[in-house]
């Protein structure tokens, strides 16, 4: 999710992951901010905006990619790809660990996000489906039968006003 319009937090959080092996400096931050606006911008134009030479941009981009700090990718619109339904599904687990159930759910293509959660439910998942019949199949006939799933509490997104995940585990 977009915590910030720029990648400011990237420089601050040297957290535990593999990607955070070096500090992003101001040039990296500018490159990332520009790529957020215009992902397929030519290196030459990127260099002009960030005010460094093209070789520097190339080097920086390679380093950002190789360290898995940032990836520039195409994101697909759910509706345009034929998925009319997006549901947030809370799951209560019994007899198995929430993480194990989460890992099983993660195997399903229609499950786009899975977290072990703190709150009323043990697992929170986001799922997509082509239509209501497809959603019924997924919830009632597939997810309900994953071992350890005791109760499913789904909410269907009526209208998605914003869905721009700019952060992700890479």
């Amino acid at each position: 999710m977009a915590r910030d319009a720029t990648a400011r937090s990237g420089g601050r959080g040297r957290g535990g992951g593999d990607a955070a092996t070096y500090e992003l400096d101001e040039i990296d931050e500018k490159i990332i901010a520009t790529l957020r606006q215009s992902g397929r911008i030519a290196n030459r134009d990127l260099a002009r905006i960030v005010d460094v030479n093209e070789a520097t941009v190339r080097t920086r981009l390679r380093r950002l990619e190789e360290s898995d700090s940032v990836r520039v990718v195409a994101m697909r619109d759910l509706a345009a790809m034929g998925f009319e339904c997006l549901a947030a599904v809370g799951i209560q687990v019994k007899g198995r660990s929430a993480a194990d159930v989460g890992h099983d759910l993660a195997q399903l293509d229609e499950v786009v996000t899975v977290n072990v959660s703190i709150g009323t439910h043990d697992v929170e998942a986001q799922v997509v489906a082509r239509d209501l019949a497809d959603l019924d199949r997924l919830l009632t006939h597939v997810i309900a039968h994953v071992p350890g799933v005791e109760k499913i509490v789904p909410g269907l997104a009526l209208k998605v006003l914003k869905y721009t995940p700019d952060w992700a585990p890479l």
Partner: protein
Amino acid sequence: MSKGVALDEIDHKIIERLGIDARVSNREIGRELGLTEGTIRSRLKRLFDNRVIRVAAITNTSRLRNPILAYLWIEANSASDIEDMAAALAKVPEIGFVATMLGRADVLAMTLVENGNELTDFLHQTVDRIPGVRRVRYSLGQNFIKHDFRWCALVD
């Protein structure tokens, strides 16, 4: 959202390729798929113009200390507040997802936080001040087991 655009096998291949790395040049995609650079360029223009895809720079959450996906289940003061409240939530830069809901809440919003204090501050200083917000329940999604970042909704 663009529902009426028919996508053929070539479109899907281009989308798949850009889903791995969107910095790849048109010429390179063309070479890989055995098509001309011009074909790729016009295909991509159609995909972008019809809002089938968008290109984004995704930052790795491992750069955050302890990424927590906060699900904010928001109840409106009255049903007539839902529409404007959702629109106002969508304008908050820190919020990456907003939808009106059938079940669980009037509106679901999601944000990424690094700790409880950050969430508390965000709830009190930002979310609670949005007109129409009566009550916010939250669940905290820890340790991402899966997040397919290639999905989004291209809304106006």
